[in-house]
Structures are given as structure tokens and as C-alpha cells.
């Protein structure tokens, strides 16, 4: 007998949650305990009175599993609202990355040229290194990081995705 793999879809979910101790552990742990995937997870307080946070989770699974993930999230007491941006329609996704490269001479010039093409900003520089700040969709960042590998990548930090619906309405 062999374990079967299923075809999966990528979905971006946003959750409006109570900003209280244990909420993040409850959500992240629910994903683990029910065997769901987390590609990325971001969380920050978004309310004036610090009572509400917004969590953006990028997950993968077959459509019925995505449906279950949403239902299981909604079942948690501190979760007020779950939106599946992927399902809801046109939306924007952005991620920020900090990318450090080291090099001199042509390699350094090439890194700078590529950064320019990708509209990455230099936020730290020494005679033999740069830190670039880049924002964009995950594909753009993946590609940029792959290019930087060729010109002296030292390390990279990524925030994970945040997303909003396009247009005037809130989700």
C-alpha cells in the first residue's frame, strides 16, 4: 500500500480575530492538528482600540479541504470573519522581502542593475554588500531572490502575504 497524494489549490484566507492571548496558537495549532497546510501566515493588530487583528493565511488543499478549513476557522470562538480572497474574486496580494547580497566589482554592479529592474530599494549598503527591500506578489519575489542567488545572496527575510479585495468595498 502507498500513500496517495491529492491535487491541491492555493488559497489566500483573511481572518478577523480578537486580539487576545492564544488566538494565534489556536488558529495555527488547528491547522496542524487537522493536517492542513500553511504556506505563509501574517498577523498584526489593525484596530484603533487594539482589540482586533487581521490574519492572512496562504494555504493549499483540494477544494473540499479548503471549504473545511474555512468552516473550522469560523468555528473558533475568537474568529469573527473568514474571507477566501481567492474565491471572492479580484484582489491584490503583496509581500515584502529584505534581501542581502555580498559582492564586489561586476557582480555588485549586476546586483544593483537587477534590483533596479525589479524596483527594489537599497536600504543598507557597505562597500561589499547591499540590503534590498522589495515588495510584490510572491512570484516576483521568488524570481528576484533566484536572481540574487547568482550575484551573491547572503540571506533573505520575507513577511508572508497580505491581501485585500480590489474595489471600494471591504471584504
Amino acid at each position, binding site marked *: 500500500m502507498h500513500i496517495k497524494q491529492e491535487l491541491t489549490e492555493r488559497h489566500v484566507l483573511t481572518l478577523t480575530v480578537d486580539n487576545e492571548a*492564544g488566538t494565534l496558537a489556536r488558529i495555527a*495549532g488547528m491547522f496542524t492538528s487537522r493536517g492542513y497546510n500553511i504556506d505563509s501566515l501574517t498577523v498584526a493588530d489593525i484596530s484603533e482600540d487594539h482589540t482586533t487583528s487581521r490574519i492572512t493565511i496562504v494555504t493549499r488543499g483540494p477544494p473540499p479541504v479548503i471549504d473545511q478549513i474555512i468552516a473550522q476557522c*469560523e*468555528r473558533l470562538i475568537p474568529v469573527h470573519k473568514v474571507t477566501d480572497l481567492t474565491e471572492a474574486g479580484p484582489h491584490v496580494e503583496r509581500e515584502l522581502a529584505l534581501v542581502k547580497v555580498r559582492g564586489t566589482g561586476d557582480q555588485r554592479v549586476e546586483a544593483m542593475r537587477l534590483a533596479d529592474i525589479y524596483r527594489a530599494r537599497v536600504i543598507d549598503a557597505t562597500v561589499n554588500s547591499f540590503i534590498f527591500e522589495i515588495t510584490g506578489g510572491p512570484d516576483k519575489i521568488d524570481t528576484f531572490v533566484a536572481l540574487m542567488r547568482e550575484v551573491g545572496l547572503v540571506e533573505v527575510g520575507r513577511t508572508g502575504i497580505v491581501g485585500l479585495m480590489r474595489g471600494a468595498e471591504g471584504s
Partner: protein
Amino acid sequence: MSEDFAVPEKSGAEILIDTLIEQGVDTVFGYPGGAVLPIYDALFQHKKIRHVLVRHEAGAAHAAEGYARSTGKPGVVLVTSGPGATNAVTGIADAFMDSIPLIVLTGQVATNLIGSDAFQEADTVGITRHCSKHNYLVKDPADLASTVREAFAIATKGRPGPVVIDIPKNVQVATTSTDVKRATSSRFNPAGEADYAEINRAVELLANAKAPILYTGGGVINSGPDASAALRELAELCGAPVTSTLMGLGAYPASGDAWLGMLGMHGTYEANMAMNQCDVMLCLGARFDDRVTGRLDAFSPDSIKIHIDIDRSSINKTVRVDLPIVADVGAAMRQMIEVWKGRKYKAAALDDWWARIKGWRAVDCLSYADSTQEIMPQYAIERLFAATKDKSPIITTEVGQHQMWAAQHFHFDAPNKWLTSGGLGTMGYGLPAAVGAQMGNPDALVIDIAGEASIQMNIQEMATATQYRLPVKVFILNNEWMGMVRQWQELTYESRFSESYSDSLPDFVALAEAYGWKGIRCSDPAKLDEAIAEMLAYDGPVMFDCRVHKTSNCFPMIPSGAAHTDMILHSDEVSGTMDDEAKALV
């Protein structure tokens, strides 16, 4: 407010007890320890709450479950930090799986010691996070009252479940002004009535069905006695047969004409065949559990499925349904009845359907080869039922063959009379659950139908029954085997009986006497009725060691990974091995 009118300060422990009383709590199941001493001191001074001292914290949680399921009120547990809390975890997980309302109060080390590996410290909120409906760590006595109030609402409303409140010792001792009242939270809004468009559609489907079935579950019991009454009325109106999961037994009376018996792995042939062949399935507060569905791709292939459940995550979890309705099942059934009557629907002509069901019933799937030499376990349950059915007993069980035989051969006509660990399948559930049920129903006949292996898992609770003079009866089907394990080994592993023999059993009669109980032993079918009568006549706890046929298997049975139509009816159809796909299923 001037100083003269200052509200008196109270300790966290006093606030806790006051709030429990305010919430209508009269019974608490618990065990003291260092981190809950302030609460126990407050309890000592308040005589309004009756504390039941169990002998192990697992017993406290199961007793509270038994209390909750038999009374419909939430069960309350009070245990200390560390081992007190971890011992209660099995009962919390059990209540979570079976949707039983519990409030579990756990002591915790003082807030300044949390995370320091202090004596009897455990991360209780971490450990219980995914086996409770919700949990809290209360860090300020001013938050206690509002937390407890919200906890009761969460535990009892919507799909019920256990809520854990972890209270550090310094929060129990610290005082606060008692006029602190946080606004009542509105963040928990369970589903209520169903949408009428959906109800209309459901009624239409049901009224036009040629082969309808009502598949009911624990949700009908949890929704309250009126839901059971609504189910009876709805079944009467539409004329459909009724089957139930293990959890839902008693919601529809087993003596009712439309009753098919339990469905699923050890359900009846007629219930499973009717599920397979129906054209409209109305699932009421059940969750298409793997014990019920058998092989998913062969589960009721040609039916239109309507699913009413209060928990949206139960819908489309394993089986795709055609008409999902998120609502309280009792309210939704009342709406269906109202629409049915309003539109003057008549029950469709279901004669053909009932004729087919009659054919399946004729298989007589629960029959077994009786013996005059030995007590057959099925016979023991039948005789116990015959002797007690007029007393409306509350039956608890442990987990295993005896549990399934009880579900098959004991019959329930009312809800809240059948307390069994369904989802988690916890051996050791039945005795403490019987203690809790007897506390909540002092005049009821409470019987734990047990196996000789399961009963030993929480046997210490015999002392609790003795202490509170609870006349519970423990009826052990003693076959000297962990019978269900033995059965699976016989059917799946070519009779390699690995570690399933109940060796070195205690003398249950002597054990009963040691705890101040009465002990009865019987191994002769001719003397069984007399022995059962002796048990029932005794005004006090009785342990009945019923020596039954040792290698009986529980049939009918849908083998692991098989379809409803592939039931094994008798032991001569058993092959003794299974492929890896089937072995991998639980």
C-alpha cells in the same frame, strides 16, 4: 461613588463560586490539590454547591459528562494544576468529540511562576486548546465573572462542548471590587432557526420521496427534549423509517413502528440497507462519521442528501450533501412540521419502500445461536432489558463489544437515557458516567453495562459511589478478553491474539465487597433472571460479574473499508484476513 458606598472586595475564589451559583450550578465533580486550595476553601464556606469527590480526575470529567448527558445541564469539573488537569484531558477530549457541555475549572501556578517549570505546572491551555471548544487563562480576578459567564454560554449554546478555565492560584486569592462587569460578549452567535427557503425545499424533497429515510444523531438529543418530540412528529407525518447513530439512540423510540435500529458498523441490516437504497436522506444532527458511512464512495450512492446541523464544519466534511442547512435541528424540524402542515402535504405512498424494508428485517440480523450451557452476551443484555424496561433506566457503557451489544439489544424509548463514549471511544467511561448520572437523577435506576477489561480503567470510582451512597449497578459482560480487539484480530489478523487476553482478573465479587458494594456472579443462563432480580432488588451499589461465552463476536458488522451492502451477518462468513488498505483504516 463616595467611600461610604464602596462595593466590598471579594477574592477570585469567592467570585468564582458566586458566579457558578448564579449560573445555576448545584453539583461539582472534583479533586483537591495545591493549586485549587483557595477555591476549595471558598467551597467549604458555601453550602449551596455539592462537591462530589472522585478518586481520579479522569473520573471527575466522565462523571460530569454523565451528569450533563442525563440532565441536559452542563457538568462542572474542578481539578488542580499539572497532573490534575492532564488526568482530566481524556474526559475533556471525550466531551469535545461527543458535544457534551462541560465547564472544567483547573488550578494553575501563580501568574509570576507560569513558564518557570514550577511544582505541578503544566501548560493546561496549551494541552487542552485543541480538545476543548474554547479555553481561558484568567490572569485577573476582575475578569473571572465575565469569563465564567461566557464559558457557560459557549459550552451550552450552539454545538455544545467542554470549556476549560485555567485559574492561577494568586488570581484565586487576590481580591477585587465586585462591581466589575465587562459588557456581555456578543462574539458567540450560534445558529438558530433555518432559512425558510431551505426548509421548504427540504419538505418538498421529503414529501416527494419514494424511499426516504431519517438518519438521526446526537444533535437531536443535544437540542433538548422538544427536538425528540419534533422528530417523532416529523416521522409520523412523512411516514419515513428512522435510524440513528450510537449517539442518537432514544431520540426516536425503539418501540416505534418506523424504527430500523442503529446504523453503521454494528448497526442492523435493515438500517444499513435502507441507507444504501434510499432516494432522499434527511440527516438530522449527525455527522457522517466513519463508523456510520463505511466505504465513502459506496455510501448511499443514489440518494439526495439533506443535512441539518448546527455546526457548519460538520457539513460536507466527508460526504457531499445536496441541501445543507445550518440550524438548530430541533428548531428546523419544528419549521419542517409547520411547513408540512401548512401546505397540507400527505405522506407519499411508501408501501413499496416498506415492503423492501420488511424483506431486510426478515433477515433477523441480530439473531444469534443461543446456548443452554453458557450465557450468550446478547442474551444477557436481552434479559437485563426485559427486567428493567419498565423502570426507564439510564444506561452507561464502557467501550467495546459489550457497548455494541448494549446498543443492539437494549432499546431506548426516551432521550438522555443512553450515555456512551461514541466519538473518542473511551474505555473507563461508564462507571464514572454512571456516578454522575446517579448524582443528577437520584431516583433513577442507573446501570453501567461494562466489559471486564474496560471496567478496570476507572474502577477506583467504586469508592465514590460508596461514599455518596449511589446505588449504581455495574453489569459486567465478562468474557475474559478485550473482546473487540480479539474480534478484530480474529477477523483481520488470522487469529493472532496479541495481548488481548484479560489475564489476572480480580475476583469482582470480592472486589465489590471490599468497596462496600454487593457482588453477584452468574454463569448459568437458567439462573440469570433470578440473579438480575437480586441485583435490582438490592438498595445500594452492585457489581454483577456476568460470565458470558468467551469468543462470541459482535455481528452484524461492516468490515473496515467495506460498503453498507457488504455486511457480515454471521461468523461463518468471516475470512480471517484483510488487505493493507482495510487494515490501515481504524
